[in-house]
C-alpha cells in the first residue's frame, strides 16, 4: 500500500476531529513558545554581548588591584599611559548620608578621575552631569538610591567627612544592572576629593582600578606584559575577557531558563500523550473497520503516527510564532539582571530548534498511546467487548520508555553539557513524575474505598468521576501538581532563607554591625552607642595580614594556597572562642606562647592543604610573625556576627595597626535608623550595616530572581491549564452521555451541574494539594541538606495558591463542560454526539 494513501487517510481521518486536536497542539505550543523565546533570547544575548562588550568594561583594558600599586606597579601604569588615555578609580564600601533627610545607606563609593568610560556612557538625569561632576567637585548618585531616599539633584550627600552636591542621578553606567543597584548602589565622587573624605585609612577595603583607551591590541599587550602584571599584582581585564565571562554567565542563565521551559514542554507532552490515548480509544471502531477492510497493523499505526507528527509540527509552529512574541518581552523581564541593553532579532536557528523539538517530542510521547493500536482487533466491529484486544502488555513499550528517557536526558545534556547535573535533573524529574503518579493512583484507590452510599448523590458522583474509566485524574494531578509544586517551592525557599536571617539575628543577639572603626574612635563611639540606649554585644579588633611562608616555603605548589598568598587576610585576636566556633582538631590556647598557636577554619585549611602543626609566617603590616597551627575550628558562617578564618591568641597583635568592629542590637527599625544617622553624622568614616537593610536587600534580590523564575513557571502553569482544558474537553463527550442519561432518568440540571462542579473542585484540590506537598518535601530537603537551614514557612500563601488552583480548575472545567447541560437528550440518545 502506498505512502500517499497513508498520508491521505491520515488527513481524512483527522478532519472531523481537528477542533479537538487544536487543544492537543496547545499543549505543545506553550512549551515550544517558551523554548523558542529563550533560545532566540540566548542568541540575542550572544550577539549583544559581542556588540556591547566594550561598553560593559568601558575601556580597552582595565587593571585592578586590592592594594595601592608600589613603585614597579606605578612605573608600569605610567609606561602604558604614554600611548593611551588613562582614567583612575578607587572603589570601596562606605556610608552615604543624605543630609536633608538624614537617611543613611551603605553604598559602593566610586571615586573617579579621568574621562572614563571610553565606551558606553554614564547616563544621568539631568543629561550632561557626568562630564562635569569631577570639575564641579560634585557626586552622581544611583537612581534607585535617589528614589529610595527621596533625594533631589542639588541636595547634599555626605561621604566620609566630605559633603558633595548631588549633580545628577546615575541612571546607567558600564556594567551596572538592577542587581548591583540593589546590592551596593553606587555613589560616584571625584577621585581628587578622596583625601578630604578621610576614608583612605587603614582597614578600608579599597580596590584600585585603572582604565585605558589603547591604540594597540589590548590582548597582545596583556600577553606581553604577563610577568610584570604578576609581579605587580595587577589583574588585567580586556574587552575579549569581558565578552567571554559575560557570555559564559548568560549562557548559564539561558540554559537554566530553557530547562524550566523544558518542564513546560514535558507537561505538554504528557498532555499530548494522554490526549492521544483518548483519541485512539475513540478511534478504536475506525481502526477496527480499517483492519476489516484489509489495512495492516503497521499501516493503521502509520496513519495515526502521521497525525501525531502533524499535530506536533503544527503545535510547534504556533509555539514558535508565540515564542517570537515572548522573545520581545524577555529583555523587560530580565532587565534587572542584565548589564546591557538587548536588541532582539529573529533567530531562524532558534525557530528551527523549536520546530524540531516539538516534532520529536510529540512523536516520542505519542508513541506510547499509539502502541495500543497494535492491540485493536478487527473483531471489535462485531463485538465491542473485544475493544482492548489481548491482555498481554506490549514489549515495544520498553523501547518507547527508553526513547522517552533518552530524549529527556539528551535534551538536558545539550543544555547542561555535564553528565552529573544531567543525571540529577533526569532522575529528579523521574522521581517527581513518579511521585505524582503514585499519589494520583493512591488517591484514586483511596477515593474508591472511602466513597460511601450514605453520601449525597452529587458528592458520590463527583467523587466517582475521579476514578471511573476514562477519568482525567492522573494527567491533571501530574500537570497541575507539577506546576503548583514549582511555584510553591520557590515561595518556600524564599521564606526559609529570610526566616534564617531573622533567626540568626536573634541567636547572635546582634542585628547591627559597625565596622571600619579606628582605634582613636573607639571610646567616643562606645559612648555614642550607649547614649542611644543600645548595648555593645561584641567588640572585635581586626588586623590585616598576608601569608609570607608555610613550613618555610614562600612559593607553595597548592594553587589555592598560591592564591591566598596574593590576598590580604583579615584576622582577629582574643582569648576565647565564640558560640559559633567549635574546635575539631588540636587545642585552642587563648594566650600566646613563644611561638603563637593560631586557629584556622577547618574547611579553609583543608582547601589550602594546611594541617595541624604546620608553621606559618604572616606579614603583619611589614613585620614577620611566625605562628603554628594549634587548632582547627568548625565555624558557623551563617550567623549575623563576625567570623574569621584565622584567630590569633591575645599577646601578639595588640600593637599592630588595626581597626574595630562593634556589634550591637537595636529593638526596632526606627531605633536602628536613628542610631545609624547619629553614628554616621558623628563618625562619617564608620560603616553601619543592620539586619533590616540586609533583609530588605535580600528580599528585593529574591523578588527579582523570583520574578524571572515565576515568569518561566508561568509557562508550566499555562501548559497545565491547556492540558486541563484539553482533558476536560476529552472527557466531555463521555460526560455528555452520562449526564444526558442522568437527565433522562430524572436528574435536574442543577444536580448535574453540582456533580460536575464537585468533580473539578476535588480534582483541583487533589492536584494542588499534591503539588504543595511535593514542594514541601522538595524545599524541606533543599533547606535541610543543600542550604543547611531550619525549615520554617508561612502557610497563608500556599493555602491561597491552593484556593486559586481549585477555583481555576473548577472554573475551566465547568466552562468547558457547559455543553453537558445544554445538549439535547434526544440528540445524545441517538448516539450522535
Amino acid at each position, binding site marked *: 500500500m502506498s505512502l500517499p494513501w497513508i498520508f491521505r487517510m491520515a488527513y481524512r481521518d483527522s478532519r472531523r476531529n481537528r477542533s479537538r486536536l487544536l487543544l492537543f497542539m496547545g499543549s505543545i505550543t506553550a512549551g515550544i513558545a517558551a523554548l523558542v523565546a529563550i533560545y532566540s533570547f540566548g542568541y540575542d544575548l550572544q550577539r549583544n554581548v559581542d556588540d556591547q562588550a566594550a561598553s560593559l568594561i568601558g575601556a580597552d583594558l582595565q587593571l585592578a588591584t586590592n592594594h595601592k600599586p608600589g613603585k614597579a606597579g606605578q612605573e608600569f601604569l605610567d609606561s602604558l599611559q604614554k600611548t593611551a588615555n588613562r582614567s583612575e578609580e578607587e572603589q570601596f564600601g562606605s556610608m552615604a548620608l543624605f543630609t536633608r533627610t538624614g537617611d543613611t545607606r551603605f553604598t559602593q563609593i566610586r571615586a573617579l578621575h579621568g574621562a572614563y568610560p571610553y565606551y558606553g556612557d554614564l547616563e544621568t538625569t539631568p543629561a550632561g552631569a557626568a562630564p562635569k561632576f569631577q570639575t564641579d567637585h560634585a557626586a552622581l548618585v544611583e537612581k534607585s538610591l535617589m528614589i529610595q531616599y527621596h533625594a533631589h539633584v542639588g541636595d547634599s550627600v555626605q561621604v566620609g567627612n566630605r559633603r558633595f552636591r548631588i549633580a545628577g542621578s546615575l541612571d546607567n553606567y558600564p556594567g551596572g544592572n538592577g542587581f548591583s543597584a540593589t546590592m551596593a548602589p553606587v555613589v560616584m565622587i571625584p577621585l581628587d576629593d578622596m583625601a578630604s573624605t578621610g576614608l583612605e585609612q587603614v582597614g578600608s577595603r579599597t580596590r584600585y582600578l585603572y582604565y585605558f583607551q589603547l591604540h594597540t591590541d589590548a590582548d597582545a599587550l596583556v600577553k606581553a606584559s604577563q610577568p610584570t602584571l604578576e609581579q605587580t599584582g595587577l589583574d588585567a581585564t580586556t574587552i575579549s575577557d569581558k565578552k567571554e565571562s559575560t557570555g559564559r554567565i548568560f549562557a548559564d542563565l539561558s540554559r537554566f531558563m530553557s530547562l524550566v521551559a523544558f518542564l513546560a514542554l514535558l507537561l505538554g507532552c504528557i498532555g499530548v500523550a494522554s490526549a492521544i490515548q483518548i483519541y485512539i480509544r475513540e478511534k478504536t471502531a475506525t481502526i477496527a*473497520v480499517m483492519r*476489516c*477492510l*484489509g489495512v*495492516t*497493523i503497521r499501516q493503521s499505526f502509520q496513519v495515526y503516527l502521521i497525525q501525531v507528527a502533524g499535530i506536533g509540527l503544527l503545535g510547534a509552529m504556533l509555539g514558535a510564532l508565540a515564542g517570537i512574541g515572548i522573545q520581545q518581552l524577555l529583555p523587560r523581564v530580565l532587565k534587572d539582571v542584565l548589564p546591557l541593553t538587548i536588541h532582539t532579532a529573529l533567530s531562524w536557528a532558534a525557530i528551527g530548534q523549536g520546530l524540531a523539538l516539538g516534532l520529536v517530542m510529540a512523536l516520542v510521547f505519542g508513541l506510547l498511546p499509539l502502541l495500543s493500536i497494535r492491540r485493536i482487533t478487527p473483531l471489535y*466491529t462485531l463485538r465491542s467487548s473485544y475493544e482492548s484486544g489481548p491482555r498481554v502488555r506490549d514489549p515495544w513499550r520498553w523501547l518507547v520508555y527508553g526513547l522517552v528517557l533518552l530524549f529527556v536526558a539528551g535534551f538536558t545534556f545539550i543544555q547542561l553539557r555535564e553528565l552529573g547535573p544531567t543525571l540529577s535533573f533526569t532522575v529528579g524529574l523521574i522521581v517527581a513524575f513518579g511521585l505524582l503518579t503514585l499519589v494520583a493512583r493512591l488517591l484514586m484507590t483511596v477515593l474508591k474505598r472511602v466513597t460511601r452510599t450514605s453520601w449525597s448523590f452529587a458528592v458520590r458522583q463527583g467523587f466517582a468521576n475521579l476514578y471511573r474509566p476514562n477519568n482525567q485524574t492522573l494527567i491533571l494531578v501530574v500537570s497541575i501538581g507539577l506546576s503548583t509544586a514549582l511555584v510553591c517551592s520557590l515561595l518556600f525557599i524564599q521564606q526559609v532563607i529570610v526566616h534564617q536571617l531573622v533567626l540568626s539575628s536573634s541567636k547572635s543577639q546582634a542585628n547591627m554591625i559597625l565596622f571600619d572603626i579606628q582605634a582613636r574612635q573607639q571610646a567616643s563611639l562606645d559612648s555614642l552607642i550607649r547614649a542611644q540606649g543600645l548595648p555593645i554585644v561584641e567588640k572585635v579588633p581586626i588586623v590585616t595580614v598576608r601569608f609570607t611562608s608555610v613550613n618555610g616555603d614562600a612559593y607553595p605548589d597548592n594553587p589555592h594556597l598560591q592564591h591566598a598568598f596574593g590576598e590580604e587576610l583579615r584576622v582577629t585576636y582574643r582569648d576565647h572562642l565564640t558560640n559559633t566556633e567549635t574546635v575539631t582538631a588540636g587545642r585552642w590556647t587563648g594566650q600566646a606562647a613563644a611561638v603563637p598557636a593560631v586557629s584556622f577554619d577547618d574547611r579553609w585549611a583543608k582547601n589550602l592543604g594546611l594541617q595541624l602543626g604546620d608553621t606559618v609566617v604572616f606579614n603583619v603590616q611589614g613585620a614577620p610573625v611566625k605562628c603554628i597551627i594549634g587548632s582547627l575550628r568548625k565555624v558557623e558562617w551563617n550567623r549575623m556576627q563576625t567570623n574569621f578564618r584565622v584567630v590569633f591568641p591575645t599577646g601578639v597583635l595588640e600593637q599592630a595597626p588595626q581597626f574595630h568592629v562593634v556589634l550591637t542590637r537595636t529593638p526596632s527599625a526606627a531605633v536602628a535608623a536613628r542610631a545609624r544617622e547619629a553614628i554616621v553624622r558623628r563618625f562619617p568614616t564608620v560603616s553601619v550595616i543592620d539586619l533590616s537593610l540586609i533583609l530588605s536587600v535580600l528580599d528585593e534580590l529574591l523578588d527579582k530572581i523570583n520574578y524571572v523564575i515565576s515568569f518561566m513557571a508561568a509557562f508550566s502553569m499555562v501548559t497545565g491549564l491547556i492540558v486541563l482544558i484539553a482533558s476536560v474537553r476529552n472527557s466531555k463527550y463521555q460526560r455528555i452521555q452520562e449526564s444526558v442519561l442522568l437527565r433522562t432518568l430524572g436528574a435536574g440540571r442543577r444536580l448535574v451541574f453540582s456533580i460536575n462542579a464537585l468533580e473539578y473542585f476535588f480534582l483541583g484540590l487533589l492536584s494542588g494539594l499534591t503539588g504543595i506537598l511535593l514542594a514541601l518535601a522538595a524545599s524541606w530537603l533543599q533547606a535541610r541538606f543543600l542550604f543547611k537551614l531550619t525549615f520554617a514557612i508561612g502557610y497563608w500563601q500556599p493555602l491561597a495558591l491552593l484556593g486559586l488552583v481549585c477555583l481555576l480548575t473548577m472554573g475551566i472545567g465547568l466552562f468547558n463542560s457547559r455543553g453537558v447541560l445544554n445538549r439535547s437528550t434526544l440528540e445524545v440518545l441517538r448516539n450522535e454526539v
Partner: protein
Amino acid sequence: MTSILEVRKLRKTYRSAGKTLTVLEDINFSFDAGSTNAIIGPSGSGKTTLLGICAGLDRPTSGDVILAGEHLNVRSEDELAAIRNRSVGFIFQNFQLMPSLTALENVMVPLELRKERDARPRSMELLDRVGLADRSHHYPVQLSGGEQQRVALARAFSNQPSILFADEPTGNLDAETSERVVQLLFGLNKEIGTTLVLVTHNPDLAAQTQRTIRIKGGQLV
C-alpha cells in the same frame, strides 16, 4: 460447484476466570461459491464468533478454515488483512462506517487499498446503485441508519469480494428500510456472484437464502 468456504473440526475456547469456556465445538461445513447462506441461532450460541473466525478476524483454537482457497490458520495478521481486502466484504449490524470519512470516501477505501486507479468513479457508481449518489459528500453522522447501511453495502461490494459476511444486516433498521437493504444485498449478490453469509435472528431473512445452518450451544444442530 467449488467451495468458497470450508470449515473442518472447528473448536474455539476462551479462558475466563480461570476456567475454559468452549464457545464452538466440532463445527464442520462448507459453502459453495456464489451461494446465499444463513447462520441462525439464539443469542450466545456462538454464531458471531463463528463468523469472525470464518472471515479471518479471529483464530480458532483448533480445526481448519479455508477461505477462497487460502488456509487461514497458517496466515499472519498482515496476510489475513490482505486476504480480507482481496476476497472478503463485510456488513455490520451497526454499519461501522468511518465517521471522519464522507460516504464516498468510505466506499473508496477498499479500492484505494488495492491501488485501483478508478476508485472514485467506481465508488460513485456504487453509491448511485444504492441510491445515494446525491449524498456522497455527507458524513455518516448526517445520514439516517438506512442510508448508512446502504453506504456500508456499497463499500462491501466495492472490491467485488468472493464472499460477503453480514452480521445482522437489518438488526438496526425498520421493516421498510430492511426490505430495501435486503433487496440490494441479494441483487448485488446475483449481479457480482458474491457468496453471501448472513448471521441473523430473523427467520424470514434466513428463509430467503439457499442454505441455512443452525447453531446452538456452540454446535451445529
